[in-house]
Each structure stands twice: as structure tokens, then as C-alpha cells.
């Protein structure tokens, strides 16, 4: 397979209110973990070890601690044009903060336009997990999807805090994507479980850019990836779901 050029966009905007006071002075993704690591290192390690080696980390909330960690630890080989770079809110589009996760990417569209990737992988930085992104990217290409959303089965009562996916009969095209539903749709063939979005997305660049532009022009939108962008693409019929449990990592789970 001729590999498409891919850019990683990592979102770290969240304030992490539930982790106070550990997040009183730092973003959730900058909370220390296991001695010398930070929570964001899980996502960055998954991406870099999976070959996604050009990564923009979008920051906003109390980002100094994370900036310092990333710039001192994630130094990739610039001869190969690889980088992990923290990107602060830069007010390209006027004197305002990021209104939501979609707005964060929209405000930084220049990064995508300059890098000219074929695919954009968007991920949060506050998950503790191990994943090979290549398998998800391959599924995205096999399905000719506009966007592919990673999801994990969770007990149905716990799914009310997530974006929940109802897949079509083929198992991967998304029919519905209610955000934090009171009554989550169950997983096909498993009435006690629901498919929860992990906030990890692979986009065709053109699909992402068009959806962000339309979303930015929509005054009723909350400008969130899970709440607005993905539902928009589900309505367009181009969203597919990748089952995280299908992901095989070296060493096994």
C-alpha cells in the first residue's frame, strides 16, 4: 500500500475539572503518570510508534507544564521532517479562545493547509491506553470512509457519558451518533453493552476541512468534534466505526 501522508492533531484543551486539584496548575493531559511520564504520553507514544510522526498538539488551558514536557521529551528527527509541536491558541481568526474541540482545529486550519496531508488523525490526550493506529487507518482506507471513529464496548448504563454509536448491519457504517444519550442504543448482538466513542478519529483531509468550515458558519453549533462534526458526517453517510477491541498491539492486551 502506498501510504498516505498523515498528520496527527492532538487535542488537550480540556480543563479536567474532575481531577482537581491535580489540574489546578496544569491541563489534564499534563498530569504526571508513573514517575517521569505525563498522561499525554500514552497518545503520543501510540501515534509515534505507529508511524504518525508529524503531530500538532493543540493547547489552550494552563499549557505551560505540557509545553515544557513535550518540547523537552518528544524531540523527533527533523531531518526526516518529523515533529511533535505544541500549538497554543493563536487567535488567527480574531480575539477569542477556542469555543470547542472543533473550533480549536478550525482556528488552526493553517497547520493542516501547510502540511497538506491526505489523512488527519485527531485524538484526545487524556486517555490511558495502547493502540496501533495503522490498523484503524487501514480500516478507514478499506471502507473508503470520510471519517472513522474508534469505539469501545462499555456497559450500557455507563454509556450515558459518551458519544454512543449505532452501527449499520455491515458492522461499521454509523447510523446514529447520539452524544451523552439518556437511553443509549445497544451494541448489535449484545443488549447490555453500547459502543462508546473514544474521541479518536481518522479523517480524509478534505472531508474534515469542509465539515469544519460548515460547522464554523453554523451559529447553532457547539463547535465540538463529538457533538457537532461527527453527527454532521453521520448525516452525510460517510462516518464509520472502528472497534478498538479489533486492534492488536505487540505484546497483546
Amino acid at each position, binding site marked *: 500500500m502506498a501510504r498516505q501522508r498523515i498528520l496527527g492533531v492532538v487535542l488537550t484543551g480540556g480543563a479536567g475539572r474532575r481531577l*482537581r*486539584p*491535580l489540574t*489546578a*496548575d496544569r491541563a489534564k493531559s499534563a498530569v504526571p503518570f508513573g514517575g517521569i511520564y505525563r498522561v499525554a504520553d500514552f497518545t503520543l507514544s501510540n501515534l509515534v510508534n505507529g508511524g504518525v510522526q508529524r503531530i500538532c498538539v493543540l493547547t489552550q488551558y494552563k499549557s505551560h507544564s505540557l509545553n515544557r514536557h513535550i518540547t523537552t521529551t518528544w524531540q523527533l528527527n527533523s531531518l526526516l521532517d518529523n515533529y511533535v509541536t505544541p500549538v497554543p491558541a493563536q487567535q488567527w481568526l480574531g480575539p477569542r479562545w477556542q469555543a470547542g474541540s472543533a473550533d480549536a482545529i478550525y482556528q488552526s486550519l493553517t497547520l493542516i493547509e501547510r502540511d497538506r496531508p491526505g489523512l488527519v488523525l485527531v485524538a484526545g490526550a487524556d486517555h490511558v491506553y495502547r493502540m496501533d493506529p495503522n490498523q484503524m487507518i487501514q480500516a478507514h482506507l478499506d471502507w473508503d470512509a470520510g471519517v472513522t471513529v474508534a469505539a469501545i464496548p462499555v456497559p450500557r448504563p455507563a454509556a450515558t457519558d459518551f458519544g454512543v454509536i449505532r452501527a449499520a448491519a455491515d458492522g461499521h457504517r454509523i447510523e446514529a451518533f447520539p452524544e451523552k444519550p439518556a437511553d443509549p442504543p445497544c451494541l448489535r448482538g449484545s443488549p447490555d453493552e453500547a459502543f462508546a466513542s473514544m474521541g479518536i478519529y481518522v479523517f480524509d483531509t478534505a472531508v474534515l476541512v469542509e465539515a469544519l468550515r460548515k460547522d464554523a458558519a453554523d451559529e447553532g453549533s457547539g463547535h465540538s468534534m463529538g457533538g457537532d462534526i461527527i453527527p454532521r458526517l453521520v448525516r452525510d453517510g460517510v462516518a464509520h466505526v472502528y472497534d478498538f477491541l479489533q486492534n492488536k498491539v505487540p505484546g497483546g492486551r
Partner: protein
Amino acid sequence: MILHNTRVGRHAVVRDAILDKNVAVLAGATVGVDKEHDHARGFVVSADGITVVGKGQVVAP
């Protein structure tokens, strides 16, 4: 759990607690033992009973 540059003095007791960076637990102080006392002193106590001391705070006896 004790993060970087946090100091715990002699005869101090730390139990079921997360101490963020640059915390000072003074000699003879206790933290995490009496959850109500922790709460009254302004430390966060999680639902599972873990006391969390924020960055740079001083725990006095």
C-alpha cells in the same frame, strides 16, 4: 503517591494520599489518616477516600 520535589519530614505519616509536586509535609504531620480533618483543612478527598494535596501546599502538624 508522591510526585517530584515533594518533601516528607521526619515522623510524618502519609496514607492513602496523592501529594502533587513541591508539597512539604512538615515533621510530625499526618495526612490521609483522618479524612474529615483533611477535608476541614481544605484538601480534596475523593469519593474513594484518597486525599489529594495540590501543588506546593504545606501540610503542618
